[in-house]
């Protein structure tokens, strides 16, 4: 499997897209640092990149990549190699290349302009989010043989997680505002990886506001490292389950 991963990874790292993505992140981060001297504001802009751009690029690129390497996958499967191994190799290679691109693109300028604890967590969260969306992309890809439809599903995933879901949660909160909503909100929010990443970052940036207005439940949750641990482990679950489902489908699928 390592051999396959290495082959795909090298192929991906050499491709123009990964370079372009790294460069884009790098330049925008450097630009942000130069425009605004306040590191807090830079973090805010980077957070927007993290929550919008990273999931979109990860999911669309991975879907396209999967479909472009269909012939390669078929060729691999004609060899005595289990299907899961090929799929996981593709997954790890894609996730690693995009994750590395993100870490270099955002992390290096951060190191250059002075990194705090918050920026370290930003890079880590972005890496995890990349993996989650690559995982979702693989799920979208194995659902259909048609590339255009797969990209459609991928975009739908992105749209759902970054916009529709939050609107739905807000509507729910509005409708049930007469009830105690602390715990349900937390559960609802952890059903969305983008929200989880957002909360990890909020714990760094808006902690004083988070501590207000909320009950003892939130206070315990956010007051300690519990909040970050919970969010990160929930993100990990989000990285694992789509690729696991994709694997099941891929194993049974008629290529």
């Amino acid at each position, binding site marked *: 499997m390592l051999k396959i991963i290495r082959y795909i990874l090298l192929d991906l790292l050499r491709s123009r897209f990964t370079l372009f993505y790294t460069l884009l992140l790098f330049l925008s981060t450097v630009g942000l640092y130069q425009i605004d001297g306040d590191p807090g504001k830079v973090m805010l802009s980077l957070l927007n990149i993290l929550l919008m751009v990273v999931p979109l690029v990860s999911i669309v690129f991975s879907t396209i990549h999967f479909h472009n390497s269909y012939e390669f996958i078929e060729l691999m499967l004609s060899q005595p190699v289990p299907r899961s191994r090929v799929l996981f190799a593709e997954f790890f290679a894609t996730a690693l290349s995009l994750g590395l691109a993100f870490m270099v693109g955002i992390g290096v300028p951060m190191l250059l302009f002075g990194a705090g604890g918050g920026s370290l967590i930003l890079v880590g969260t972005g890496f995890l989010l990349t993996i989650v969306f690559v995982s979702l992309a693989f799920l979208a890809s194995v659902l259909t043989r048609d590339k255009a439809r797969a990209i459609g599903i991928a975009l739908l995933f992105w749209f759902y997680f970054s916009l529709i879901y939050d609107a739905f949660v807000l509507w729910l909160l509005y409708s049930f505002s007469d009830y105690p909503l602390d715990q349900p909100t937390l559960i609802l929010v952890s059903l969305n990886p983008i929200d989880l990443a957002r909360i990890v970052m909020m714990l760094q940036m808006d902690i004083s506001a988070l*501590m207000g207005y909320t009950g003892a439940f939130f206070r315990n949750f956010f007051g300690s490292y519990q909040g970050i641990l919970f969010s990160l482990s929930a993100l990990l679950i989000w990285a694992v389950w789509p690729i696991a489902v994709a694997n099941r489908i891929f194993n049974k699928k008629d290529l």
Partner: protein
Amino acid sequence: MYFRTLLFLLIIFPGCTYARVLEVSPASRLSLAGAIGLAKNGDTVVVIGGRHRSGNLLIQKSMTLLGKNKPVLDGEGKYEILTIQAARVKVSGFRFERSGRSNIDDYAGLKAQGADFLEVSHNEFSETFFGIHVSKSNFVHIHHNQLKASSLLEYELGNGIHLWKCHSARIHRNRIEGHRDGIYFEFVTKTSIQSNYSYKNKRYGLHFMFSNDNSYRNNTFRNNGAGVAVMYTARVHMEGNTFDQNWGASSYGLLLKDIRDSEVLNNRFTGNTSGVYMEGTSRTRFERNTFKNNGWAVQLQASCDGNSFHRNNFIGNTFDIATNGSLVLNTTDHNYWDKYQGYDLNRDGTGDIPFYPVSLFSMIVERIPPAMLLWRSFMVFLLNRAESVLPAITPEDLKDHSPSMKPYDLR
């Protein structure tokens, strides 16, 4: 030597009212209670070192109590340590330890009643129930004291410096830690509170009611359970104070309830859940304050009127101003807002389009607190944008007509 000279003088002029000095030391046979009993008006009792378990000491004469080498007055967890019921008493240089605790008798390290011109300075209070408890005494001067309590239970704690029905007091340069309220005033007027440091108190760093015409300068209130709360008072002057790191659901940097005709100038509000919370507050000026990294910089309830916010800096707050209604009777002008995205074409230093400090989402959070978890999501961003283009829910009148383009150079 001094003592002998005085004794000599006393012998020469018998019957004269020259002040005597009585010395209590481990070597002398005189006990502290004995010395206080012997002393007459105007005398000085000097206590040198040692630990004194004298139960409750009662002073009913105008005298000076001077501690050298920090003598300890131990209340053994049972007694009120020192009770003063006379004018012109000075207490300086002692360490008060372990007073009794009683919510009925309000035991204190030092309690004064009807003690005008009392001066309490350079003392330490450790594990006393109330620290310094003064009532019906005017022209009191309390300075350079350190008070510390460490119980975790609020009912086992009294207030650090507690004044009731006093006027013209001066409370300067004290440090108060871990009490119920750091400084508590009720019916205290014309008093100056300066350069005190009140922190980690279980309830409020500073708490006063019905206390008009007081001035608070250069104090620091940090990390108190519920911040600072002041109520039912007119003509408060607050200048150069720091309100820092007061976190929690009902914790406020500064809570103003039914305050009128007051001034809040040059203060710093940093890292609080809520910098300033105002309810029923009228005609109060906020100028040259810095609001930095608070959850809510200012929570301005609709019951406030005639307040003005001028030339303040709002930097890095999650929400700048929140309110609970659409009625706006207050003015905000010439402030610096780091969230302002307008332009300044004529380059006069003020933005050409007004700034609306109340965001839609802050109104939503006001109504449904758990919605806070959606903050900074793309959907909330869109909602706020749509609202700022066409205000429908946020109060249209709450705006800064001439926001400053650059932060003011403040303390």
